[in-house]
């Protein structure tokens, strides 16, 4: 009975839940752009000499995406390190392999949408950041959680991707995670 209750609660969460934690959003908005710069091949991802940081959101989460954009702009004031950046907000339905992106920040959505975003990021050879750590099992690369302390999670699959090469010091900071451990 308890298992059934837990299962249905979990199912409901996965089906409908697009609530966000403000502190987690802010932590991710502060830290993810810096992690992107720790990719030794970041220069290969510039578009017109700019970093295009693309936030992918479900239609109902437009306000959240906008909130993240504003927070990043307040924090970084136009530059990720020495690189100028531009933030694009893209609805899942408009996301395609042609979408301009140096990195994706993926908010919550259905499994199909998450997989779609992960596949596109993988094909393009760019880093994909996830709001929800559970979505790493669907192929996104990195996430951040506030547990007892702030923890970075990296999908093991991205250790040997041709176009992404994080510096060793970052790899010693993250917790590796794979499909089976989520």
């Amino acid at each position: 009975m308890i298992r059934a209750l837990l299962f249905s609660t979990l199912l409901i969460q996965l089906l409908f839940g697009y609530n966000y934690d403000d502190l987690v959003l802010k932590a991710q908005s502060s830290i993810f752009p810096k992690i992107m710069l720790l990719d030794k091949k970041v220069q290969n991802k510039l578009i017109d000499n700019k970093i295009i940081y693309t936030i992918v959101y479900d239609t109902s989460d437009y306000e959240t995406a906008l909130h993240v954009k504003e927070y990043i702009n307040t924090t970084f004031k136009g530059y990720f390190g020495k690189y100028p950046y531009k933030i694009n907000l893209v609805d899942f339905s408009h996301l395609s392999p042609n979408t301009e992106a140096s990195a994706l920040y993926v908010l919550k959505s259905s499994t199909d949408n998450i997989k779609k975003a992960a596949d596109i990021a993988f094909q393009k050879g760019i880093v994909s950041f996830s709001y929800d750590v559970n979505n790493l099992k669907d192929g996104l690369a990195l996430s951040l959680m506030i547990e007892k302390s702030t923890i970075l999670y990296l999908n093991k699959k991205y250790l040997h991707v041709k176009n992404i090469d994080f510096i060793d010091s970052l790899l010693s900071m993250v917790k590796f995670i794979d499909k089976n451990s989520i």
Partner: protein
Amino acid sequence: MGDNGVKRSIRLFLLVCLAVLQLRAEDLLSSIMTDMKQFNEIATQTKQNEHYQPYIVSVFEAKELEKLGVSTLKEALLLVPGVDMATDNFNNQTPIFRGSNPFAYGQSKLVIDGVLVNNLFFDSYSEYLSMPIEMIKRIEVIRGPGSKVDGINAYAGFINVVTYAEDFEEFESNDKVVFKYGSYDYRMGGFVKNFKSKDFKTHIDFYYQKDNKNISSGPDGLSQGALGPANIALSQSGEAPLWLDEYSLGLDVRYKDFRLKARMLQHKQGSAYGINLTLPQESDRMKLPSYYAELGYMKKIHSFKLDIKAGVKYNAFDSKAKLAPDNLVLGSVVFPDGIYGEHYAKQRVLYQSTYVKYSGVAKHTITIGYKARQTRTIQMSSKLSNLATGDATLVDYTLTRPFFDKDASRDVYTLFFGDEYNVNTKLSILYGINYEQTSYEDAGFEPRVSLVYSKDFKNIFKAIYSCSHRNPSWQEMFTKNNHARVGSTDLKPEKVTSYEFSYIRNFTNESYLQSDVFYLVNKNQIYNSATDPVYRNSAKTDIYGVELEYKGHIFANDKVYANYTYLDGRYSTDGGKKYNLPNVSHHLAKGYYIYSFSGTLSLGSTLKYVSSKDRAKGDARSKVKAYTTVDTSLNYKNRHYNYTVNVSLKNIFDTDVRYPSPQNTYVDDYAQARRTFLLTLKKSF
């Protein structure tokens, strides 16, 4: 330049490039680490990582409660798992945690921005329960003997109210003004204002509120012979004056490593059900003013963190009321115009504490410190109608028949040692010991061990063993010449040993299910009764139970919170036969639901169920009835002009809610408010 020279130059250039890259990477990593550290601190302070804390804690964000129409601290606390509310003839309300001694005060502690505000007279904080929710940022409630603040011993529960004085970089709070109007002609106005310059940060909050609440009550305690069989016929029923008239000014100033916290609360309320259990007049009143100022200095030096505080606190019990009706007979004296009384006792607390945290040993954070408190009665007066002639005119009995010991004093010294040992990334152990000595009976050594094991993000386990105590309150020690309460300085501290286990299942960042099992062994419980008004360490109770708490959501744009508590136990007096726990609900279920139609409009509802309560041994009355209350609230937020309008209807089914009265007092218990409405207007800047 030859080939070798060119090669050398290229090598050198590459080395420089690598060095620059390495330097930039190191800067970035250092910046990420700093960010992570900052978010760790915020998460720890705001209890974002509550599930990893070494105690059982529930956190309520006031902004979410505002959407539900929750109006005061008391209403918020009623949502906490395992918490019920009790009152007495003064309407001195107190939250009861997990059924622990419903007629005692001080088993829980209230801290506002780190300052303990329980008053000295009752050791309660009833005067703060009416604090408007708009003045509060967050409420953290620890159940069980744990405590967030070093040197403060919670016995059954610890409430930490965080105001908008809390300040984090990039998480600044808005200034605001708020107005409220509701049933019983309730009116409230207040504001929150923050000033910030390079070194100074100042926070001010202010509110004024009043109502004219009177609730039909009775028959009063005379019907049960509270003032002798000769006066039973004088018993009355009528409107108990439960009105409120208060204002509060809070101030928080930070300058570099110094912080000054001060608050002045001028609380005045109706005399409720009467000091002597006789229904008072509408204008009769009791004042419970509370003033405090605390200066703190906090400094980090390498691996040391120093925290020094010194403060002063004033409280008073100030009553002016008609204590008995016309034609009362006491012995051979008749009081044709009744008995009037004015009672005043003012107390002062001086305290100083020093704590040092040391994190220089790998995996350990060691805390050591002390707290010294000197408590005194600094003023007392006692005036009554002439007890010899029956004339109603007041006579000064301060010296001849004081209601309180005018020389009452108590010094308390507490030593604390604790160590948080992070064994590995999954397991942490907190262990420590408190030692307390007082000028009366000592509590002695009290150990505490807490284990937190996080198997992974989704599964967290806790096991807690702790001992704590509650020193007798001053009314339990120093009250004199009173028909209902007589103090004793021979009282020992109430003691509790608790065993708690908790399992938390996290579903996502925002949703979890927590289950707790607890077993509490209580000794030296302090009780008195109408037939034996002297306070004595007369009872032992064993309490056990289960708590379930869920937070999450069902659909997009909604929030659900629900909890259920089952508790039971045994109660015995003076080592005698064991009985069911008196005046305790075995089942408590609370919850709320908020549905947001859009970013601006939301509908919220709260539900509370409190099961029936057994009476004490020898009390022939039927059980205190179970009740369910439902509140609902509509919230509109205008983002353009930044104002909020909230309309709420409370107890929409007009349920009869009663808090239990002791035997031989108000036979029909203490009736509470029925259906009410509230309108709130808030403007943020």
